[in-house]
């Protein structure tokens, strides 16, 4: 178990980032919360980080599929070399 999360802000921030992508373990999250009980800076950072995740989800951004982009690049390249 990584108890450094309890004491090191860098480690707590790392778990906070992983949590935004649901890649942290339950234990890591508990240790991070314990860290945040006494660390105001990390508490604030966590709130901002979560807010960023929420607004990105809310915006529901879309990407053009890679194959289509490749097709577009090809057409542009052909036009340029004409």
């Amino acid at each position, binding site marked *: 178990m990584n108890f450094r999360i309890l004491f090191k802000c860098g480690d707590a921030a790392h778990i906070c980032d992983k949590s935004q992508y649901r890649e942290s373990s339950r234990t890591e999250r508990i240790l991070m919360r314990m860290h945040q009980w006494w660390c105001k800076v990390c508490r604030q950072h966590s709130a901002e980080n979560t807010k960023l995740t929420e607004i*990105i989800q809310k915006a529901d951004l879309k990407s053009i599929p890679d194959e289509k982009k490749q097709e577009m690049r090809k057409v542009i390249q052909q*036009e340029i070399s004409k």
Partner: protein
Amino acid sequence: MGNVLLHPEKWVDKYSDYLYNYTIVRVNDHEIAQDLISETFLAGLNSKDNFKGDASERTWLISILKRKIIDHYRKINSNKGRAEVRVNYSDEDAEGEWLEEKVKDPFDRTAEDRMENEELGLAILNCMDSLDERQAKIFKMKTIDDFDTEAICNEFNITPSNLWVIIHRARRAMAMCLEENWF
């Protein structure tokens, strides 16, 4: 003559997703949106001599795209116009419950929400422009395209630790940028 130059070879990487998010809320069809963007790039290439360099490349491409979207709706409307059925509210029969159709629903926030989400999406993409190219690509793959950590690490030949450092810095920069430009 302004001092902005065109770099068509970078258009797809730099602007296609921005244009796509701009278009999709207006045409509501992925295929059509993608076609309109392809047409925009081609029209941009064909009229590149008219670019004065006063506006940014993206602004110029958006202005072309706007015309493409208008043309798209003109085409649709000219096809279906003949079959359209119109309700004439000036009829004498149009009384009572029929009039309710004319009243705007004050609780319907769908259009307003969509507009706000679109603005938010474009603000996020604007902020992503301020990240360096590699950082922006990695952030986008992880956050928007939902790629696995392993897949991104393989593509960029980096370790998971490197990836998380890049993600952390990108998230900090994004939060600061959106704090300034959105909240």
